[in-house]
């Protein structure tokens, strides 16, 4: 039986490519039917804000995010503490087609997986 996989997204978008390359890896897993659970934590929660990176000549990461539900990732997990620590109002976080699940205890959540990919 295949392992259960969690993708942990901890980095803000655009400053470096970890955010983008993380999302690309997640979609690649899902395309191979190894559908990972996804948890945004730390600066990774910034990936869930509205974006418009034309002014810095980047493609929007929102496109990659929005592809997730189409690939069968229908729940997106978000660390509640990370959101609060950054002063983000939870209603500004959204992703069409996906349910955002705020987690109070990320440690208990992480424990249940066989493998964790960190980005």
């Amino acid at each position, binding site marked *: 039986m*295949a*392992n259960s*996989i969690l993708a942990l997204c901890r980095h803000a978008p655009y400053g470096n*490519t*970890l955010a983008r*390359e993380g999302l*690309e*890896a997640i979609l*690649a*897993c899902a*395309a*191979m039917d*190894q559908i990972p659970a996804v948890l945004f934590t730390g600066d990774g929660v910034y990936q869930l804000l509205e974006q418009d990176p034309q002014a810095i000549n980047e493609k929007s990461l929102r496109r990659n995010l929005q592809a997730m539900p189409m690939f069968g990732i229908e729940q997106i997990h978000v660390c509640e503490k990370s959101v609060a620590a950054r002063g983000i109002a939870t209603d500004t976080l959204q992703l069409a087609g996906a349910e955002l699940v705020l987690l109070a205890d990320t440690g208990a959540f992480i424990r249940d997986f066989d*493998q*964790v*990919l*960190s980005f």
Partner: protein
Amino acid sequence: MQFTLVVYGAPHSSEGAATALRFAQATLAAGHGIYRVFFYADGVHNGSALAAPPQDEQDLLGQWQSLQQDHALDLTVCIAAAQRRGLLSESEANRLEKPSANLAAGFSLAGLGQLAEAAAVSDRLISFGG
């Protein structure tokens, strides 16, 4: 037990690449198998045939290559991450009309599906940050 290693760090730039190599050596020495080493993000530079560190610094490339030969290691470099960063095989250089290739012997380019597959079937997956 079968391990998969994911390497995010470029050699001679962050310590993660060297740490991954030491871990790989210890894993094999303990009698475990390495299902795949997947080089991603800046880690793709580990597969550069052109790195020329000073004589008195460690030769990470040579060490990966001899480990690969001795244990038939699967050293897979993510092709998308490599293209962005200018790491190309002969056939990729031709296809993209670039003047030269620089992928080292012992490494092969492949898609992210190889990471997904390794995560699904290995007993343990461990990442080495950049």
